[in-house]
């Protein structure tokens, strides 16, 4: 059965007809063309499909689109403002925390939720939050240091 829903994504409102069983991930990719949310394991393990739901990281494969009505959804496409990358995005590029890029949106969004709530996390807190995201190319050291460097820049007022 299809339901009319209004989804708030990256500050915009979208009216859609979605089937009850459809995960948010599929609606973002197939209906809204927001392909930054990646289709990975679809089992709630790999974190490639991470989006922010009311500012907190969730696996969009494990959320029904019909259940996301009335919530604030943020995808990687919503992070840059006026073509200016978020400090986390800049840090991932500058620190070589990206190789194939498939997992990067998930890592960056998870890190954003962490820094929004805790601007000065230590390395073990960063690692704890990033447990739900898997990278198979870079290794995690550069990713953790990119998040810590971005946190420093946000604190210094160089970013948002």
């Amino acid at each position: 059965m299809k339901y009319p829903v209004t989804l708030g994504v990256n500050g915009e409102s979208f009216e859609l007809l979605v089937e009850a069983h459809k995960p948010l991930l599929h609606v973002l990719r197939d209906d809204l063309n927001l392909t930054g949310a990646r289709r990975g394991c679809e089992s709630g393990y790999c974190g490639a499909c991470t989006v922010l739901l009311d500012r907190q990281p969730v696996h969009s494969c494990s959320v029904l689109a019909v259940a996301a009505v009335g919530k604030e959804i943020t995808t990687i496409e919503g992070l840059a403002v006026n073509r200016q990358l978020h400090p986390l995005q800049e840090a991932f590029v500058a620190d070589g925390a990206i190789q194939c890029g498939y997992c990067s949106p998930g890592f960056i969004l998870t890190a954003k939720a962490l820094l929004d709530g805790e601007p000065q996390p230590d390395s073990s807190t960063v690692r704890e939050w990033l447990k739900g995201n898997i990278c198979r190319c870079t290794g995690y050291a550069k990713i953790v240091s990119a998040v810590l460097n971005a946190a420093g820049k946000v604190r210094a007022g160089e970013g948002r």
Partner: protein
Amino acid sequence: MQQMQYVEPGSLTEALQTLSQNGEEGKVLAGGQSLLLMLHLGLVRPAVLVSLQRLSDLTAIAYDPKGGLRLGAMTTQRAIETSPLVRQHCPMLARTSSLIASVHVRMLGTLGGNLCHNLPGADPPPALIALDATVLLASTRGVRELAIAELFSGFMETAVRPDELLTEIRIPPASLGGRAVYLKHCVRSVDPALVGVAVRLKLAGDGVTCADLRIGVGGVSPTPYRAGSAEKILRGQRLSRDSISAASAVAAAECDPITDAHGSARYRRKMLEVFMRRALTGGWNGDGAAALC
């Protein structure tokens, strides 16, 4: 599956009526962290999904000295992990929640949802067994209270009837003192427990005799259970390396381990003995370092 309906009742009464009307065709959706995986794998195909996300009454955490700790079934794992009340009165449960999967899963996954799916390797069941918790099951027929160990009736099965809703988890005041430990063994930290052992232990006045204890085991056998034989060896006895080893050996001998992608039955049995010994030792000497895996 294409015809699946989705409803969001606005009150508990409405939710119970919806469940009563739909019987076996209805399925409760809490945080979705178990159910969506099961839907994706085709393990369940309900005609009606009954979402509880509007029932904000079910997210309360309350404590009073007479009633103990009460957790609404829709309380998220993240809320339990970070709750000052839970951390103060039942730190073992807060720590158990913090070991579940990832932050992502804990943001949405609920305690009630976790218990009602009874997935192999879930962390809260053994912890709640050791804490002698009970659950409230509500339906249009009334409310019944069930001991937590009786909830887990078989492999991925529970005693919750199709028209019932698990609404609350209660931890009695007597379980909130003493020493409590939960140890989890898994290969990657986001995995379910290969072995999860929870121990709550009370020492007698002499400081070496075990006045009482309760042990919950998850991940090993088809369903979580209370390790009664191991308890019996230690209850009223002097705690020592030898008595703890003996109890752990009995627990390993008596378990009914499963084999799956995470580990073999033989490995689970061996690890149960190791982690039972560590958890009991941690409960005995209060050595947090020994209790951490």
